[in-house]
């Protein structure tokens, strides 16, 4: 006997619902018994719902109160993390900036640092500790100078001003990002 190839039928979903719920319209049931597509749909619905019934009887699901409170805790933790994110960003930026400044100062005054390190190497730690006061005094003197240009050659003043302006722009951009994130 040749087997008919089932086509799609507009009543399939109705038949599937009947098979799923057991609530059959007599006319629909009659149709399902004769229509290959609906017969397959009914079979699929019965089979899969048999599996679901078995699973539901055995499932051990957690208490809804537990789910509710855990969801609240998770949401609060994430909200807290999101709220403090810009602050942590500023802290990281400040740390990175401090490291860059320290490295820049070391490079700029490397000759003084090298002399101090040399003193430690040649005359011992005690002498190095004594000359540390000299190094500190050197940096203090530099800090007390009224302008950077006084200690720099004339041609580099423009470069220093351009660098300073660039740094100011960078800081301004950073704070703009920070405040936009805070608003979010």
């Amino acid at each position, binding site marked *: 006997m040749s087997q008919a190839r089932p086509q799609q039928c507009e009543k399939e979903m109705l038949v599937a619902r009947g098979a799923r719920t057991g609530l059959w319209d007599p006319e629909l049931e009659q149709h399902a018994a004769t229509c290959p597509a609906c017969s*397959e749909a009914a079979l699929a619905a*019965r089979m899969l719902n048999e599996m*679901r019934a078995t699973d539901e009887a055995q499932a051990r699901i957690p208490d809804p109160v537990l789910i509710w409170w855990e969801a609240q805790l998770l949401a*609060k933790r994430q909200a807290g993390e999101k709220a403090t994110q810009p602050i942590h960003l500023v802290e990281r930026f400040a740390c990175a900036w401090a490291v860059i400044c320290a490295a820049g100062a070391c490079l700029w005054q490397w000759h003084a640092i090298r002399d101090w390190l040399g003193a430690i190497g040649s005359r011992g730690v005690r002498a190095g500790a004594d000359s540390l006061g000299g190094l500190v005094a050197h940096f203090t003197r530099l800090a007390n100078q009224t302008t950077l240009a006084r200690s720099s050659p004339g041609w580099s003043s423009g470069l220093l001003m351009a660098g300073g302006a660039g740094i100011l722009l960078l800081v301004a951009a950073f704070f703009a990002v920070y405040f936009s994130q805070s608003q979010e």
Partner: protein
Amino acid sequence: MLNPISMTQARELDRAIGAVDDTFPMDEQSFRTFYEATARRLWSYLYRMSGNATLADDLLQESYYRLLRARLSEMSQDYLKNYLFRIATNLLRDHWRRTKIDPPAPPEARAREPGWTLASLSGEMDAHADLVRVMGDLKPRERELLWLAYVEGSSHREIAQAVGLREQSVRGLLFRARTKLARLLRRHGVVSEVVQR
């Protein structure tokens, strides 16, 4: 140990945490009612799609967490249920993608509850095990489509939203999946007859 925080951080935290309660789309009682109506069904879906009861437990909880944090445009039970199954389907996909393993076949047959049986099954004894084998021969997407259509009663549009396909594609794919299921049932001898013209 708790990290010390500044006044600015404390104010930000207070503002953010205060806002959390307003972001949940439902109150606790509504959630409890919805959960009790859907949790077992969702677990069954996750279990049959993943083949792993522990994973189904985890994804069930994660699905509800995400539903609670979602910004929903509608609050009807049908909409919430469909949205929940959509989240669960995406979580399953993410899991398979993350672990870089193929979705497993459905779980092995377990002890079967006595009682109602399929009218068209050829035999009672191994029917359930055979059904599980048949499900294992289906592709994960075919299983998803069939489950959502014939167990959850989702419309083509809802299925399309849940699995990320176009509605027209769902119609064709569902038809092919159902035909394949019927063919497999006949091949495994699970079903003795499907109406023939």
